[in-house]
């Protein structure tokens, strides 16, 4: 399973990598803004994108819109502090497949990734 993490926080990327490693997912790439996420998903095929919302250059929501506008159906999970219901609806309408609110329990992330892991393995 090939995973792209888009988050401007090095800390959060490390935390997410730790969680992915417990699932024996090691094919992981990292970017720190939405624009880079759009470029990465245009250049390579991923099985999952974990996308922060608040990032410099281009935010995660705009990146989701761009990725979907290119016809890319890669599963995208928002991983964000933006937890208002209106924000979640906005992200899902834009094309996000799932939503993980920070702070999160490791088990929550594992459960959500496992839900698609079988389908993409």
């Amino acid at each position, binding site marked *: 399973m090939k995973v792209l993490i888009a988050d401007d926080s090095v800390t959060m990327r490390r935390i997410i990598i730790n969680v992915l490693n417990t699932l024996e997912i090691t094919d992981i790439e990292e970017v720190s803004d939405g624009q880079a996420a759009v470029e990465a998903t245009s250049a390579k095929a991923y099985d999952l994108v974990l996308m922060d919302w608040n990032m410099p250059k281009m935010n995660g929501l705009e990146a989701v819109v761009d990725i979907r506008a290119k016809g890319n159906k890669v599963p995208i999970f928002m991983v964000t*502090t933006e*937890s208002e219901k209106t924000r979640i609806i906005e992200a899902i309408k834009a094309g996000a497949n799932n939503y993980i609110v920070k702070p999160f329990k490791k088990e929550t992330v594992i459960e959500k990734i496992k839900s698609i892991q079988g389908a993409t393995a």
Partner: protein
Amino acid sequence: MEVKYINPFIESVDELFSTMLSCEARQGDVQVTRSMKIGGDIVALVGLTGSRRGTVALSFPSATACAVASRFIGMEITECDETVSDAMAEVANIVAGGAKSRLWQASQNEEPMSLSLPTIISGSDYTINYPAGAVWLQIPFSSELGDFQMRLIFVPGGNGSDK
């Protein structure tokens, strides 16, 4: 600044510590201060804008910052380097984000506030300025990872309301 703004931030600190740091953050007495001096070796600031404007500042002694970063990332860190600064920025971001959501739930469908990207200040000799007369609320916390402080300020936002 009304006291009702405090609880969402305190709850947010509690939630972060219990879910991602596996320990409890014990809150001390809330104090009011006009002092622009914020103690601590590392301060992480996040601004909130919208119907209200505010700032949350989390200040950590070096030892606490290293302990929090170590637990957060899952690796031993003994010096306050860029890794620690980034971790404190993410801590402040999560605390502000959680509080923002709680404030939104209490606001009855106002547009959610927006967060600034976190700012980190390192060192011990600095002053943070805010509009004259502004009053900060200061909340001390203790935890098994060390002591730290949170400061909050809120003023009316773009539409002038401060409900």
